[in-house]
């Protein structure tokens, strides 16, 4: 699995309809993307890469500071661990 940050952002934009998404904005501040958009992306990702074992934890956002760049970093780590 080699999904670059820009590819990841493009996929999130395609799912949500959002444009020009800032990868460093806190998720809670991106009004055009909500949790169901993220789960919709995750469903497609899981279907395409079942070997990675990505789950909703990569979107964990308890303190409200998670960004899409952070999510992508987590995804890369999960994928590396699964490889």
């Amino acid at each position: 699995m080699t999904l670059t940050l820009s590819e990841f952002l493009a996929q999130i934009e395609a799912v949500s309809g959002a444009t020009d998404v800032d990868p460093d904005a806190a998720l809670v501040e991106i009004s055009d993307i909500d949790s169901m958009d993220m789960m919709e992306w995750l469903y497609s990702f899981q279907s395409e890469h079942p070997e990675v074992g990505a789950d909703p934890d990569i979107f964990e956002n308890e303190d409200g500071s998670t960004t899409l760049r952070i999510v992508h970093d987590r995804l890369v780590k999960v994928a590396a661990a699964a490889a």
Partner: protein
Amino acid sequence: MQHMQITGWGKAVPDRVVTNAELAEKFDIDEEWIESRCGIRERRWVRDGETTASLAVDAGRAALEHAGLTADDIAHLVVATATPEQPSPATSAFVQHELGVAGSAHDVNAECSGFMYGLVHAYALMRVDPRPILLIGTDTHSLTANPEDRDLGILVGDGAGAVVLTPGESDWVLGWDLGAEGRWTSSLQAVCGGSRMPPSKEAIDEGLHYAKINGNEIYLNAVRLSVATARRTLDNAGVEVEDLALVIPHQANIRIINSIASHAGLDPDRVFTNLERYGNTASASIPIALDEAVGEGRIQQGDLIMLMGFGAGMTWGSMVLRWGGESKEAA
């Protein structure tokens, strides 16, 4: 061989309409946000005195009337609910008494998949005892959601839907699938009130008797499990997705329904929805939608239709039916 056919259907919903405007004010959120989040514009909530059983009785009467039968004709009553009249006895006992059903009565609890589980139970029961069955899906989740819980509060609606199932020579059921993955119990649960955590003042003060949802898990599993059950049932039935005249999914959330349709290859124009008016009525959502789909002429004699649901647990179920049964022309 006697087969199962659907010869009556009906619904009952409370007359109290709860609009997004009312909930937007209650939860201090934007009215449009609610609709964009779930596709629901309004839902029906019970008033004092209305209960899971009272809605079931009204829906059951409507279905019996439509079938041209009386309660005396019913050999078995099956009530699907996750919001029972009271912890004991079963809700079906109250419904049986009120309707005057002559035969057996039992409950099925598979949360929002309850109607699908009940339908397959009835299908099996019909094979060993080919006499009329009344199947009712009924729920009042407005009473089990924490009044302060925005996430569930905007979704839930109350209602009941019923079908009368009678034996016949023509086979309506072409394929079905049921299943469960119990490792997802925490996706949607009310932890207090059973043997694991009996009711206590402390637990109730903490609101642990209210249902709590993990929306991300529900979304992901609902799509995954629904797409899988749809494929299995179509395969079991030997039917191509293009051949379906109508799909009636559990009316949970328009975005979940749209996702399921997209990933399962369903034609969106052939997916019936009415959740914008009723919200998520749990076990009742599929029979209510079936009643309306038939009433609106969306289902014609000979049509292939698929009913499919998912629920907490998580559970799922689906069935492909030939409306009116198999005939030489339709087969």
